[in-house]
């Protein structure tokens, strides 16, 4: 278990560095090797997770669920109170699975693409390593290291392989997220050296009681420090302005990982670090954050409605959907929390698929303007069907996973804050309006010049990247228990800190 987990974490870093050494002139060699590395990574994931998969849905010893079991631990930097420890539970395993799945799909997607050379693939692999590392980390300092390290490959991916305005977008992405995370660093420093904690390990921090008397007190400040990093990453309104730029300019692969993994890490970070460590502060901040979540849902939806750029529209729809997750997190109930984590997976799949499909189209047409498209379904029935399926999943149509997540969040938050729940409900309606509006203009109506003059012949590897996502989406729509049953014990466990 220890070895397989460590190998699973190190594999993308090692293969990423290896990929840098591949010759620039033969991108095919790097692409196929990278695909092989991805497949091995999937096997490593199965090998690492397999032994504990069944345990996840069972409550731990003594009736209560086990709190974030640690499977690997190494005395890293004792005088900074940091141990290199990695843990696994129902909160991070689904996200790890999503990360592995998306990167496998992108491994197929990047085959036979002339411009995706060893540099791109290497950075991509390292990005995977960093995001997996921050999901696994059971030590605040280790978490911070991986969390910040993610910025480097992502920055270079957006800046190096993005579209026209990439330099501005990548700088904005880097500056926003790093400014947010520096507050988290300050909070971690304070945790380590201001208070008498045994180590920065998750279990030691959870066992410590930080006094809470208003926002100027210890717990209030620590909570705000951590929270700033997460709200920028999610992003919660009004910290969201970097996201549309980054999404629009990023290359397809980076967009998919950004939507599918990086944004989810903010949600995960709150559930892993903010809620259990600072329960009183979280409870006190819950109404405000839920209100911000609602504002995000409504504003994001309206902003998406009026976009003329498809990628920007999907980006704003992400802002809206992530507002739901914030709502679910701070409703502080089991259903809502489960819903937030299920919605994580659902949104990762549907938005990932949307970006992937649109990436395939954009590669041929080089236009993101909705108005230039029209009648796409007449020319390319299968691709249009996939696009519509992914859009429906994004809207939250019953039978697709988005519905389960949003329903759980709304039902859970209705118990505690009915008003917010009702406001959020309007987001579902608005989501249907802007998505269907976009589909009508994009896929139906008379066939436009652009669609006529740019035939989209989808290659086998592009289908190979797309089909697993769609199949998995349909599977989760009907078999949501597969994930919900694993998340439930972990979600219950998070909420035990609130009693």
């Amino acid at each position, binding site marked *: 278990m220890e070895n397989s987990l460590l190998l699973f974490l190190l594999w993308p870093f090692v293969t990423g560095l290896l990929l840098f*050494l591949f010759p620039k002139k033969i991108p095919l060699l790097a692409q196929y090797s990278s695909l092989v590395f991805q497949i091995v990574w999937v096997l490593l994931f199965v090998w690492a997770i397999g032994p504990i998969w069944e345990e996840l849905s069972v409550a731990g010893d003594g009736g209560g669920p086990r709190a974030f079991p640690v499977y690997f631990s190494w005395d890293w*930097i*004792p005088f900074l109170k940091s141990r290199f420890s990695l843990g696994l539970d129902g909160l991070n395993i689904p996200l790890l699975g999503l990360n592995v799945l998306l990167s496998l799909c992108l491994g197929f997607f990047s085959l036979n693409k002339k411009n995706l050379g060893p540099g791109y693939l290497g950075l991509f692999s390292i990005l995977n390593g960093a995001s997996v590392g921050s999901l696994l980390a059971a030590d605040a300092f280790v978490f911070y290291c991986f969390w910040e390290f993610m910025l480097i490959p992502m920055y*270079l991916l957006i*800046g190096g392989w993005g579209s026209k305005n990439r*330099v501005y977008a*990548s700088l904005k992405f880097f500056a926003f997220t790093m400014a947010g995370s520096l507050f988290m660093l300050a909070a971690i*420093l304070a945790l*380590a050296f201001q208070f008498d904690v045994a180590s920065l390990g998750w279990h030691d921090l959870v066992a410590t009681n930080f006094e809470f008397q208003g926002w100027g007190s210890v717990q209030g400040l620590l909570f705000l420090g951590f929270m700033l990093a997460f709200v920028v990453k999610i992003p919660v309104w009004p910290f969201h302005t970097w996201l549309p730029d980054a999404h629009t300019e990023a290359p397809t692969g980076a967009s998919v990982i950004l939507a599918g993994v990086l944004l989810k890490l903010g949600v995960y970070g709150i559930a892993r670090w903010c809620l259990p460590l600072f329960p009183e502060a979280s409870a006190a901040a819950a109404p405000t954050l839920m209100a911000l979540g609602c504002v995000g849902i409504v504003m994001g939806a309206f902003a998406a409605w009026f976009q003329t750029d498809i990628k920007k529209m999907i980006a704003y729809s992400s802002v809206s959907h992530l507002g739901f997750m914030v709502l679910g997190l701070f409703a502080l109930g089991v259903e809502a929390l489960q819903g937030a984590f299920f919605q994580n997976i659902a949104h990762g799949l549907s938005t990932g698929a949307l970006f992937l499909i649109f990436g395939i189209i954009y590669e041929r047409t080089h236009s993101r303007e909705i108005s230039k498209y029209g009648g796409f379904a007449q020319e390319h029935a299968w691709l249009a069907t996939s696009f519509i399926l992914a859009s429906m999943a994004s809207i939250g149509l019953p039978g697709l996973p988005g519905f389960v997540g949003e329903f759980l969040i709304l039902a859970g938050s209705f118990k505690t804050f009915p008003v917010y729940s009702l406001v959020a409900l309007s987001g579902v309606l608005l989501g249907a309006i802007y998505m269907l509006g976009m589909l009508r203009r994009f896929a139906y109506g008379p066939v436009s010049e652009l669609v006529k003059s740019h035939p989209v012949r989808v290659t086998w590897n592009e289908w190979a990247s797309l089909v697993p996502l769609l199949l998995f989406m349909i599977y989760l729509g009907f078999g949501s228990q597969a994930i919900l049953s694993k998340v439930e014990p972990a979600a219950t466990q998070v909420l035990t800190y609130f009693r």
Partner: protein
Amino acid sequence: MESSFFDSSVFTLGPNELQALFPLLWLCVGLVFSTLAAGFRLGIGFTRVLSFFVFVPFVGLLAIQLGNPPVAVMGTALEMNAFTRLVGCAVGILALLVSTFVTPTRNGVLHPEWLAILVVQVLGLTLLPGARDWVSFFVYLETLAITGYVMASLDTDREKSLEAGLKYLLTGAFGSGFFLMGAALFYGLTGTLDFELIASALKSVNSGPEKFMALSAAILIISSLSFKLALFPLHMWAPDVYQASPTAMAAMLSTATKISVFGALAGIWTLTGFSNFPELKQILIGLAGLSIVAGSLLAMAQKSLRRLFAYSGIVNAGFAALALAAGPFATGSMFAYLFIYSVSVVGIFALLERFSTQLGLEPHGDLKIENLPQIGRKFQGIFVGIFAFFVFSIAGIPPLPGFFGKYLILKDLWIGQEYFSAGLLILGTLLGLGFYLKILVPLYMNQDEPTDEIPQNKRVAKLWPTALATTLCVLAAIYALGGLSRLPRWVETVEIFAR
């Protein structure tokens, strides 16, 4: 008091002293050989090999003796303690790295004296932190200063290099003048030049004209050393020297000097009782703050890469000064930080040298930011990757070595409750993104523009000097992290100043 200075008994050298001096004596032997090599005008290959035989045993001998008890040589002239040896090791390693990429000038002429001058420079740098009175301090300071002027203007074919040397000489002469004035004031006030006697005399100085005199003396000495450290506003020479001197020499001047002079300043601070005056601490924090803010803003405006790194050096000197101002307990962190920074800068300069020769610019040529896209297209990913590694490392992104250096300082500032300084450090890190990312943007991000034919130099870029620097950089970080906590030698080093 003066009588002890000329007491003949202190000049006798016992076996202890000889053993402690042995590394320095080896350096003198090396000096003889390198002078001979210069006299016979032996080629670059020979002097490079010779440098290996001079510096490797030097570093090795110092490292073996690192844990030996402190030995006072010739009274107050020199104290060979753990810190002096540590600085010697660091400086020797940097000199060794620098000798690997010393390159002939435009006409293929390289003054073969470079090694002899470098050896004397290393001698001065090693001795400086060991001085225990102002006379020997001045002798060592001038040893490194005068060789520094020669190094800056070693490329006698180029007017720019001569101009840089002259500028360095003129500002250096000002610095020496300030220093002598300060030492004279101390002598006038206390009647001695011995550090310990000055410290005990200063203890009773609390107010009135005496305090004014002591403060002015200390300020004069701090400002004279600030010239060497290139702290704002005494930095004027640095950009020119960085830009126009031979690359290898510029790398040495910008890194090794900082380690040695900061080490010496940390010694002076406690040994001569500067720490009794809180005003001095505030002045140092003020200088550091100015360096960080002004250095960052000026760096953002630069077009020449080497000038940009000069300003980044000013910012980094500011960070180290913050650690120095915090007190003797932060000396270990300051040293670790400076060493990691130095190795990274040497690596960057080695790469810049390779890049400019490959692009057909003259050796020691001045790379502009506009040349960077060419580099990004031209070179194997591994070179560009290592370059990015160093730049991100200096910028302080985890888990690259530079981050740990910064984190160590931040930790000590936090423990010492220097919240203002900690804020400055974080502000500086954020501002730093403004220019470090500016370098990486064109390096990676203009790849799709038409590939212009670049006149290619036949010589293949050598990887190993930079690979060596990379390895060292990583090792230094690991050593600093493991070493600060685990090896008692480090603790002893820190305690020497805490005494």
